[in-house]
C-alpha cells in the first residue's frame, strides 16, 4: 500500500511533476494539487528555489515556500548529474503533466525539451510557462511579475485619473499567470482522457495580463479608444469610488442602479439635488459628488456605514486590510483557511482553494521539506531497492 494517502478530488490519480521556481509555476502546481492531483516538486541543493532561502536560515522552514507549496511532495534530484537526469526521466515516464517555468531554453539545455520528454512519455502534457511564452521574437526576455503587468497593458489602467499609472500592488500577476496555465493543463487532461493524446502547452504571462483587460482592448479595436487609468471611476456608475472613513479606513461604494442611487441620495440628503438626478448628471458633476460623499463618509465608522448602505440596497464594502482578511466572516464560512501539518513545524493555517465542490480533495499537509518524499519517489514509484537508493546518495543524486 502506498505511503501517500488518497485525498479524493476531481484530479485524483493524476501525477504532476513540477520543475518550477518562485510563484507562478508553483501556483499552477498548487491549484492542481488542490484539485486532487499528486504534485511532485523536483528540487536540488545546487539549484534551489529562492523562496526556500530568501531571508531565512532553515530551507525547510521558509515562510514564502510554505505559503505556495502546501500539499505537494518533494523529491531531490541533482540535475547536474547524468544519473540524476536519467532518474528524472524515469519519473517523467510515470507523469501525466509536467509544469516548468525555468528560464527560456533551460529545459532544452537540460535535455528535457518537449520532444525528449515525449520520447519517454508519449502522452505527456507539457506545460511551459514564460514571460512572453516559449516562442516568438521576444521569447528570450525575462522579468518579474510587475513586468508582465506592465507589458500586457494592465498596469497602464491602474492609477489616478490624469496622472502617470501606478500599476497594481507589486505582488500581482504570478498567481493569475499560474491559473491560466492550470486551466490549459486541465483542458489537455480532458482531451487526453478522451483521445489518449498529450500535448505541448506554451503559456505567456504577458498575454495572461492582456486577457484580464480584454474589454479595454476591444474598445481600441472598436472605437480606436486607448483607455487610460481613471482612479476608481466607471462609465456606467456614479458614484463609483473608494471613500475615507473614521480611523484611516476606506469604503468602496458603487451606485449600481438608479434605485441604489435613489437610496444613497436619500441618506446623503441629495435626493432633491437636480445635478445628480440621473447618471449623465452625476457623471458631469462627479468631482463634486465624490467630494460630498467623502465629506459624509469620513467621520463614520466603516462597518456601520457598510451595514447602513447594504440595508439600503447600495453596493458597499470595506476596503479590507490584512487583519480584515484573516477575520472575514464569508471566508471563514467557507473554511477558507485550512489547517495543514508538516513534519518540521507542526500545524499551521494556510490559504485554501477558492472553490467548494461536492467532492473536494482533502487538504491536510503542509509544504514538504527538501527531499521529504525521496523514498516514495525512488522506492515506490521508480521501484529502486534500498541498496540502489543508497547508491544514489553515494553518487550525489540525492541525500
Amino acid at each position, binding site marked *: 500500500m502506498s505511503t501517500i494517502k488518497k485525498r479524493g478530488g476531481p484530479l485524483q490519480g493524476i501525477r504532476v511533476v513540477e520543475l518550477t521556481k518562485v510563484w507562478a509555476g508553483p501556483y499552477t502546481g498548487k491549484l492542481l494539487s488542490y484539485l*486532487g492531483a499528486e504534485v511532485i516538486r523536483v528540487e536540488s541543493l545546487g539549484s534551489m528555489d529562492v523562496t526556500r532561502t530568501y531571508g531565512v536560515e532553515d530551507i525547510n522552514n521558509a515562510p514564502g515556500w510554505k505559503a505556495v507549496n502546501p500539499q505537494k511532495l518533494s523529491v531531490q534530484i541533482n540535475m547536474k548529474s547524468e544519473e540524476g537526469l536519467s532518474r528524472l526521466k524515469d519519473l517523467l515516464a510515470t507523469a501525466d503533466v509536467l509544469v516548468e517555468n525555468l528560464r527560456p531554453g533551460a529545459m532544452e539545455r537540460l535535455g528535457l525539451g518537449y520532444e525528449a520528454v515525449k520520447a519517454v512519455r508519449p502522452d505527456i502534457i507539457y506545460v511551459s510557462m514564460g514571460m512572453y511564452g516559449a516562442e516568438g521574437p521576444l521569447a528570450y526576455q525575462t522579468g518579474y511579475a510587475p513586468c508582465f503587468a506592465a507589458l500586457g*497593458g494592465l*498596469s497602464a489602467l491602474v492609477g489616478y485619473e490624469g496622472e502617470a499609472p501606478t500599476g497594481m500592488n507589486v505582488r500581482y500577476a504570478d498567481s493569475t499567470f499560474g491559473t491560466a496555465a492550470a486551466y490549459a493543463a486541465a*483542458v489537455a487532461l480532458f482531451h487526453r482522457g478522451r483521445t489518449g493524446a498529450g500535448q505541448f502547452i506554451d503559456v505567456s504571462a504577458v498575454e495572461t495580463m492582456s486577457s484580464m483587460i480584454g474589454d479595454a482592448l476591444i474598445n481600441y479595436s472598436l472605437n480606436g479608444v486607448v483607455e487610460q487609468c481613471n482612479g476608481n471611476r466607471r462609465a456606467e456608475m456614479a458614484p463609483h469610488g473608494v471613500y475615507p472613513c473614521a480611523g484611516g479606513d476606506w469604503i468602496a461604494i458603487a451606485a449600481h442602479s438608479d434605485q441604489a442611487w435613489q437610496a444613497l441620495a436619500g441618506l446623503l440628503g441629495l435626493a432633491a439635488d437636480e445635478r445628480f438626478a440621473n447618471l449623465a448628471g452625476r457623471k458631469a458633476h462627479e468631482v463634486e459628488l465624490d467630494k460630498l460623499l467623502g465629506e459624509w463618509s469620513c467621520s463614520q465608522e466603516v462597518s456601520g456605514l457598510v451595514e447602513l448602505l447594504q440595508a439600503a440596497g447600495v453596493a458597499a464594502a*470595506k476596503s479590507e486590510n490584512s487583519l480584515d482578511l484573516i477575520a472575514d466572516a*464569508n471566508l471563514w464560512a467557507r473554511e477558507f483557511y485550512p489547517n495543514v501539518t508538516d513534519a518540521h513545524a507542526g500545524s499551521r493555517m494556510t490559504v485554501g482553494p477558492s472553490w467548494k*465542490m461536492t467532492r473536494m480533495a482533502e487538504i491536510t499537509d503542509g509544504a514538504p521539506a527538501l527531499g521529504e518524499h525521496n523514498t516514495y519517489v525512488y522506492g515506490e514509484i521508480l521501484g529502486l531497492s534500498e541498496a540502489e537508493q543508497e547508491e544514489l546518495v553515494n553518487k550525489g543524486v540525492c541525500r
Partner: protein
Amino acid sequence: MSALQGIRVLELAEQVSGEYCGKLLSDFGAEIIKIERPDGGSPTRYLGPVAEAGDDAERSGLFAYLNTNKHSVTLDLTSADGVQTLHKLLDKVDVVVADQRLDWLQAAGLEPEAVAASWPSLVLCCITPFGLQETPAGLAATDLTVFHSSGWGFHTPSAPDLSRPPLKGAGRFMASYEAALDAALCVVAALCERQASQQGQLIDISMQAVLVTRTDYVMGQMVAGDMPVSDERTAFDLAGPAAIYATADGFVYIWMSAPAHWQALGTLLGNPEWMNDFPGDWLEKGCTPERVEVVRGHLATWLAGEQKAAISAAAQKLGLIMVPVNNAADLQACEQFIYRQYFAEVEHPQLGKLVHPTVPYRMSETPAAIHSPAPLLGQHTETTLAALAGGEQ
C-alpha cells in the same frame, strides 16, 4: 478536434464572470447555449464599449468579445413554461454555468443542491460575489466592492500616498475575469473526473475567495503567523525604488532589487556623481526610504527625456530590468503578439470586422479558436429548442 467539442453547456449568465467562464469553455469547442431574457437579453449587451451604429442589443463590443462561439436562446424564466423548458434543457446538457445569485436560482427552480440531486451527472458551477453561503445573504456587490473585499484594493497601489484612496485595479472587471478562470478550471477538472465516474457535481466559486487566493504568497504567510498583519496599506509591499516612471512618449516600469541591477544602472547612466553616495549593495542591505526617495527623484528626471521602447531595450542589454508600460495600441503593434497571433479578426454581422484578444496558451493538439461571432439576441432559439425537442443528443 478541439478539446471540449461535444460538451454542451447551459449558460445562465448576465454578468462578465459567467459570460467569460462560458467563453473560456467555448474557446475549446464546447457548445454554449446562452439563455437570455426575451426583453432585451443579457445586460452586458448594453455595456460599453459600444459602436455608434447598429441595433441597441447588438452594439456592445463587450458582449461581442465575451460571447464568441455561443448560441443565444431566449427564454422567459419568469413564466412557468420557461422554467419547464429550462428544466428539459438540463436533461440535455453536461454543464451549467451560472453567475446569478441564490435567490434568482431558487426562483427559477434551480436550488443548487436540488439540481445536483436531480441531475446527478450535471456539473453545475455557480459564481457569486461571496459564495453560496454568503452572510448576510443578498449583499449588493459589484466588481469594485468585491475587489476591495479581497485585499488587492486596499494594497493597491504599492507605496501609496495615504491621503488618497486605494484603487480598483485595471479596468472594470478584474474580479470577474479572475473568478471565471477558477470556475473554468473547476468545471473542466470536474469533467475529467466525470469521464470515469459519470458523476457531476456542484461547484461554488466565491469571487472574493478567488482574489484572496491570488495573494497566497503573502496571505499564506500572514495567516500562518510568519508575516505581520496590520492595517497598513504597505503590508503587501516590497521595499525599493521599483515603480513606473514617465518617459517622453509614455511610461516604463523599472525593477531593481539586487546589486547587479544597481551596477547596470550606473553603466547606463555613465556612473553619475550622485550614485557614489550609495553603497553597492544598498538595495539588498540598506534599502531605506530616504535612499529610495533620492533614487526615485533621479530616475524620474533622467527618464523624462527618454523614449520608452529604446531605453528599455538599452537597459535590458545591461541587465537592468526595465520594460515599457504598454497600452492597447502598443499591444496591437507588438511584434511578439503579432508573431503569436494573440489578436484575431472576427466578423460580426453588425459590428463588422473586429480585432479580438484571444488566449494566453498555445496548445499543440487542441488550439483555442473563435469560429463564430457573438450571437444576435435569440438567434438560435428556434433551432436549438427544436433540435433538443427532437431528442438530439
